[in-house]
């Protein structure tokens, strides 16, 4: 039980060669594999978003035909949701940091972890195959609504299978995390000593585990329907297309919390570190994650307010939708309170966190607008909804992801990024983002429906502003990427704990050794964010 004094071999150096990566069961390597795959898909989907904005810069045909446009937004949505946002935080940061943060050396089932990575790859390959075989990528929207998804001639079957496989990958990750958290916490790491990121992942994992099977079976039904040429949602057989929508949203609403809960966990890590004080309301934040996960199961109907749903069902779903906003509010208030009387060090990760709070507020509050019955009737399937979900998904979860990428950059790669460039990139992204999506909210109020290839003259100005915003955003993103790549190659050296963080990952060298620690980690007394007593570290 001796404590190694010299810098130990880090996990990159421990094994070499391609196979030591793609067949590794080391959670850190699997996390990084996810990262590279996820970020590549993200860039592809961003390019598609960029192309859509170009097309929409003026009414009529600008650079592509209607069918191409429809395929592009479908692919954009499918990649962003199933290949980027759902796996992003859990599968990358979760895999990499969860075991370290709770003081163990791997997840509970390392082989299952590898399996879920390979399923992810398989799903990704299926998604990409839709591009090259048959009649091209699906043109149904990421929601695959029947009966259109059954009628169209494009590669819906493949796309749906891709989503199905990715679902299994997500289930296995969730399963692994639950067991890891239950069984593998370090001695003395009680439930309320866990970092909030672990709590967030725990809540998320339950959604992954218990909601995903429903979409799995639903997508199989779509496949069956396409293969037999007749099917379960076809009125001619006694079926009902609305039932498909129920099944789809039973999963897909909870799925939006799969996207945002872990991101909220990241925010709960970053804010106390840069405020140099403990988090405000640890338990409130921990329990609100569970509350969001739980209530989130019961609100799916708010996506179907205009589908002819019955009155009582609308009332129930609307009330519950509003209730799920309360635990989110609790989190926001606690984060802001954490800044109070801190000693705030404004580094890039903190900027991203503050932007998260602002943009998540806009997204969440617009969510309230469409959660109300009267207003959703008007705003459903308009650009208001598009604005809402980009604010929560990109402005919220996406920004948290980038923030954490900076926050843990030194830990993962052992180098420090260039702070000034990062701040410039952030500024571009923040301005570009709001310029891109705010006009969409206004367009929606004016009545422009979404998934519109072409639009009326009166919507032109706002669309132009939005497109210009996308250019500024791109500039920021490219700058950020270049900065990170550069820093990884030539960035400054870093220490174990460059930010003065208090959670366990800062007790290990950067990058961590193969088995995560070079000495048995010391679980702090009190709550995991107490800066005072950990001064020595």
């Amino acid at each position, binding site marked *: 039980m001796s404590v*190694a004094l010299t810098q130990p071999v880090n996990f990159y150096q421990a094994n070499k060669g391609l196979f030591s990566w793609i067949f590794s069961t080391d959670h850190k390597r699997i996390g990084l594999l996810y990262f590279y795959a996820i970020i590549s898909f993200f860039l592809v989907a961003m390019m598609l978003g960029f192309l859509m904005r170009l097309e929409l810069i003026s009414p009529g045909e600008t650079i592509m035909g209607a069918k191409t446009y429809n395929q592009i937004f479908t692919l954009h949505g499918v990649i962003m949701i199933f290949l980027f946002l759902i796996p992003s935080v859990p599968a990358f940061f979760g895999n990499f940091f969860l075991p370290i943060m709770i003081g*163990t050396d791997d997840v509970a089932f390392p082989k*299952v972890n590898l399996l879920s990575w390979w399923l992810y790859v398989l799903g990704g390959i299926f998604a990409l195959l839709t591009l090259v075989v048959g009649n091209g990528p699906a043109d149904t929207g990421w929601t695959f609504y029947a009966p259109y998804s059954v009628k169209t001639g494009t590669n819906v079957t493949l796309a749906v299978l891709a989503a199905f496989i990715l679902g299994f990958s997500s289930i296995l990750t969730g399963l692994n995390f639950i067991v890891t958290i239950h*069984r593998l916490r370090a001695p003395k790491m009680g439930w309320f000593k866990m970092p909030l990121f672990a709590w967030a992942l725990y809540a998320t994992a339950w959604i992954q585990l*218990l909601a995903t099977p429903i979409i799995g*079976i639903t997508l199989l039904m779509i496949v069956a329907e396409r293969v037999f040429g007749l*099917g379960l949602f076809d009125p001619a*057989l006694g*079926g009902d297309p609305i039932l498909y929508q129920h099944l789809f949203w039973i999963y897909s609403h909870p799925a939006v919390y799969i996207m945002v809960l872990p991101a909220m966990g990241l925010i709960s890590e970053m804010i106390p570190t840069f405020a140099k004080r403990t988090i405000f309301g640890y338990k409130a934040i921990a329990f609100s994650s569970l509350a969001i996960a739980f209530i989130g199961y019961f609100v799916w109907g708010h996506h179907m307010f205009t589908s002819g749903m019955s009155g009582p069902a609308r009332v129930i779903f609307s009330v519950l939708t509003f209730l799920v906003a309360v635990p989110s509010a609790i989190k926001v208030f606690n984060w802001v309170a954490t800044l109070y009387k801190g000693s705030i060090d404004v580094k890039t990760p903190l900027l991203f966190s503050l932007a998260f709070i602002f943009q998540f507020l806009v997204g969440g509050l617009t969510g309230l607008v469409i959660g109300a019955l009267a207003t959703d009737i008007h705003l459903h399937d308009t650009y208001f909804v598009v604005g809402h979900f980009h604010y929560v998904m990109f402005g919220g979860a996406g920004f948290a992801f980038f923030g954490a990428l900076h926050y843990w950059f030194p830990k993962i790669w052992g180098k420090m990024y260039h702070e000034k460039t990062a701040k410039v990139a952030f500024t571009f992204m923040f301005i570009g983002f709001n310029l891109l999506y705010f006009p969409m909210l206004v367009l929606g109020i004016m009545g422009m429906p979404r998934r519109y290839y072409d639009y009326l003259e009166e919507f032109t100005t706002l669309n132009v502003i939005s497109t210009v915003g996308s250019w500024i955003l791109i500039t920021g993103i490219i700058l950020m990427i270049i900065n990170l790549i550069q820093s990884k190659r030539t960035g400054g050296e870093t220490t174990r704990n460059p930010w003065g963080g208090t959670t366990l990952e800062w007790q290990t060298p950067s990058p961590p050794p193969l088995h995560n620690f070079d000495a048995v980690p010391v679980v702090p007394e009190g709550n995991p964010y107490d800066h005072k007593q950990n001064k020595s570290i």
Partner: protein
Amino acid sequence: MSNFVLVNSGHNRDDEASKFGMWLFLFTELLLFGGLFLVYTIYRYLNSETFLYSSYELNVLLGTVNTIVLLTSSLTVALSITALQKGNIRLSLWLITATILFALTFLVIKYFEWSAKFEHGLFPGMDHYIQMLPGEKMFFFLYFFMTGLHGLHVIIGGVLLGYIMWEIKKKKVTPDNNIFLENGGLYWHLVDIIWIFLFPLFYLIH
């Protein structure tokens, strides 16, 4: 490399964790079929009369026999775990073999049931099927879909048990280290439980 050991390592053997993981997996299986039961419930409500009427086409006798076969296989697998825990490896192997044989019996009976339906042209897309009423079509589509998916689970469970037998022979699964068999058993019981519901919902709604 460092020479200390973390007590709580993901690489230590942890039976409790394996079993917990298996249960979590069973929850997902439950909800997978749960989605289908939801579809069944709604469509049965929308087409109650035709569902009732269609269920007469199914053979209650074969269904009952199959239910009993599966229940018995559940028994044998449960007994095989007791046997292994008591150190009686031979008996345990025999009981697993019996389970797999029951699984095969189940599948053979299913095969005859399905082929009878095929002969009547009740499979989606066949001539008789096409002339049926909407609700009837839905009934048979669901029947084939749900029993088909269940059959797939029977096959997977059987293969899994076969693999476990091999592991027992190779002394990888032993009286002291029997969690793999226990998990295989859990899976098998789940398959049984699902059938416990499929049976009355399709065969017995007279």
